[in-house]
């Protein structure tokens, strides 16, 4: 059909319709895709719901108490009797330090003690001897005193016998003092011997607890210094997760709350646990609070320093106004949500409350059933035209 064959009126009409159709398509394109298009937003409503917030942290499996067994003075390791993974009992001999000359010093002390006993015996014999001399001198003294009184001997002889008696008594006292001194010598020598025995015991490293050896850090022949750990022990029944929780999110955590623990080696299984302790000393550099979460019940096998994720369940809020967390936005320094008013976006400041992963409580600013913008195709500004559409792909 040739255009020129048509009547002029019809022709003009056709051309006009064609031009109009094109302009309509053009305008449609500009208003839906171009710069004049309104911003697509997805709307949701404020609902009343129960919120059960949780606090999340990551940490490592650690022992409540860690024991490092080592010598109190420098020495050379003689023997190590246990290895990593061995179960030990309290008091069990774990390792020995080389005593060097301690054995010989012990023998010397024992000999000194024996000698002291014999010296004491000799002193005792001397006491007996002095006692017998005293008896003789005293008898002489009494005899001569009687004789002198009757005038049969000179006074000088009686005096000298009295002198002998006194001297013999003094000698007895001296011998007795010697004897008790010799006894003291025995105690001293024995104490020295016991002291060397104690030092020798100190060189034996005993286990402080019933537990498991986690590290054997020095081998026989190594020189160890005072305070260096030779073996490390833990009590396997006292393992927990030492979790770090961001301080900004740690509010509301108390001892006794139920928690889920996920180990890195078993990422699909959540093990039950309980908050055992919240450490008073937080980490100032990383701004984290340290929370110890115990396994409840303790599992059969745990590995120290394994990474674990902890989710502590906080007491929830019942029947509160809540909106999706994606709806919270910041505008001009305020927290709030965007609402659609007469086809335009308006910012409504709100006060948020308890937060879970998906939702946040609205304390004030909105009422139940209000509409609000959850997702937007572009950054919203006050007063931009918006149109409701479905943004999330199904």
């Amino acid at each position: 059909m040739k255009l020129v064959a048509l009547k002029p009126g019809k022709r003009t009409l056709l051309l006009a319709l064609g031009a109009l159709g094109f302009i309509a398509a053009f305008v449609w394109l500009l208003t839906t895709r171009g710069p004049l298009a309104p911003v697509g937003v997805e709307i949701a409503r404020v609902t009343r719901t129960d919120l059960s917030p949780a606090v999340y942290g990551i940490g490592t499996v650690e022992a409540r108490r860690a024991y490092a067994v080592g010598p109190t003075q420098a020495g050379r390791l003689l023997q190590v009797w246990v290895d990593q993974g061995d179960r030990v009992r309290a008091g069990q001999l774990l390792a020995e330090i080389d005593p060097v000359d301690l054995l010989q010093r012990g023998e010397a002390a024992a000999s000194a003690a024996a000698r002291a006993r014999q010296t004491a015996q000799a002193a005792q014999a001397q006491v007996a001897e002095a006692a017998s001399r005293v008896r003789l001198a005293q008898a002489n003294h009494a005899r001569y005193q009687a004789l002198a009184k009757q005038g049969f001997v000179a006074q000088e002889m009686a005096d000298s016998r009295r002198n002998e008696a006194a001297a013999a008594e003094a000698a007895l006292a001296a011998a007795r003092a010697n004897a008790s001194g010799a006894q003291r010598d025995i105690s001293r020598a024995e104490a020295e011997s016991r002291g060397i025995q104690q030092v020798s015991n100190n060189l034996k490293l005993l286990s402080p607890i019933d537990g498991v050896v986690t590290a054997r850090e020095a081998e026989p022949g190594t020189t160890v210094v005072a305070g260096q750990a030779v073996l490390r022990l833990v009590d396997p029944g006292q393992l927990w997760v030492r979790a770090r929780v961001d301080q900004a999110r740690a509010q509301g955590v108390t001892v006794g709350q139920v928690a889920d623990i996920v180990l890195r080696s078993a990422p699909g299984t959540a093990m039950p646990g309980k908050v055992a302790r919240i450490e008073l000393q937080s980490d100032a550099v990383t701004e984290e609070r340290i929370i110890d979460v115990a396994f409840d019940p303790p599992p059969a096998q745990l590995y120290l320093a394994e990474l674990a994720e902890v989710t502590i369940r906080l007491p929830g809020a019942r029947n509160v106004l809540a909106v999706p967390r994606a709806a919270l936005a910041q505008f001009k320094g305020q927290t709030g949500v965007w609402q659609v008013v007469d086809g335009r976006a308006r910012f409504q400041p709100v006060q948020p409350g308890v937060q879970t992963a998906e939702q946040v409580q609205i304390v004030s600013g909105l009422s139940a059933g209000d509409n609000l913008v959850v997702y937007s195709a572009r950054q919203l500004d006050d007063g931009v035209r918006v149109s409701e559409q479905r943004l999330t792909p199904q």
Partner: protein
Amino acid sequence: MINLAGRDIAHHLKSYLLTGLGLGLLIGVTLTMAGVYRGMVDDAKVLLRAVDADIWVVQQNTLGPFAEPSSVPDDLYRALAGLAGVAQTGNVSYLTMQVSHQGKSQRVMVAGYEPGKPGGPSFLVAGRPIARAHYEAVADAKTGLEVGDRVRIRRNDYTVVGLTRRMVSSGGDPMLFIPLKDAQEAQFLKDNDAIVEDRQRLAANPAINRPGQPGVLDAVQAIQTSSHKVNAVLLRLHPGTDARALATTIARWQRFTAYTRADMEDILIAKLIATAARQIGLFLMILAVVSAAIVAFIIYTMTLGKIKEIAVLKLIGTRDRTIAAMIMQEALGLGIIGFFVGKFAATLWAPAFPKYVLLETGDAGRAFVLTLVVCALASLLAIRAALKIDPAEAIGG
């Protein structure tokens, strides 16, 4: 007074419309090229706009976290938060790397930020914001990731919990937002082999691994695997605070370089994308000149193709003015059709480009005026040629 242009077009409607379509595609290509240029400049600015920080504090004497590497301590924000006028502070870290997902590897910029503080995405198109302190991510829709996907960055797997749109780095790479501590670890912590080797090197160093001091080696190894550095600190100021004055104060007394938002835009546009922008700008100019030349040539040829008809018109006594009006109207009509077809086509195919194409109305308006001017000038040339035609040619002379 008959309208010669209308009748002439009506007689040759198909070829007229096809010529208009051809011109339109050419104009569309030029508009798209202008859109590519504008899109590149917008890419450089979009992150600054979305993050909405008034001051960027970076390592001293460096050009900020994007143009040059910058490393500042992560507790610097405490000193800055105390300055008068500062409303909010936020640590951020940026790392461009390849991430692979389901066999496809693509270049993304991994951004670390603290939820609730400046530095994160300002709106979402799906999912929810990051709730936990570790191992969650918000991705830009251009990465092709969906909510619930797991993506591996360095040593850990991150679950994508939310999607955003139009969050790209200045180079056009889509962004992936993860918690700051994870980003610090990704940027500064090496892989296991490197860590083990570093430990062995330290253990072999007699100055550190002394026999009488068993604790020193452990302490030094712990320092090596910890990182407390970020790339920049963002500040949002109270309304009415002078950003320039505060930036100067920070630079002078804290001795860290501080850029206002205008400075950052200047750095990104004038320094980071300058060469690429000039490249495209030059091509755009050449394309515009060539398009103008082709438009002029087409109109001129179209007129010359009607020599016989114009000669006949002159023979039957048509005034010069009428003929000139016909040529001018046809040329302008062609220009108008070409422009609208071009704008239509450019708007239709712009979203298909891998990088952002920004078609501004100002550019479209300028293109419209330019098209009409070129068509008018070309028609003037054609009119001059037409008026010189000898009417005798109509009868084969």
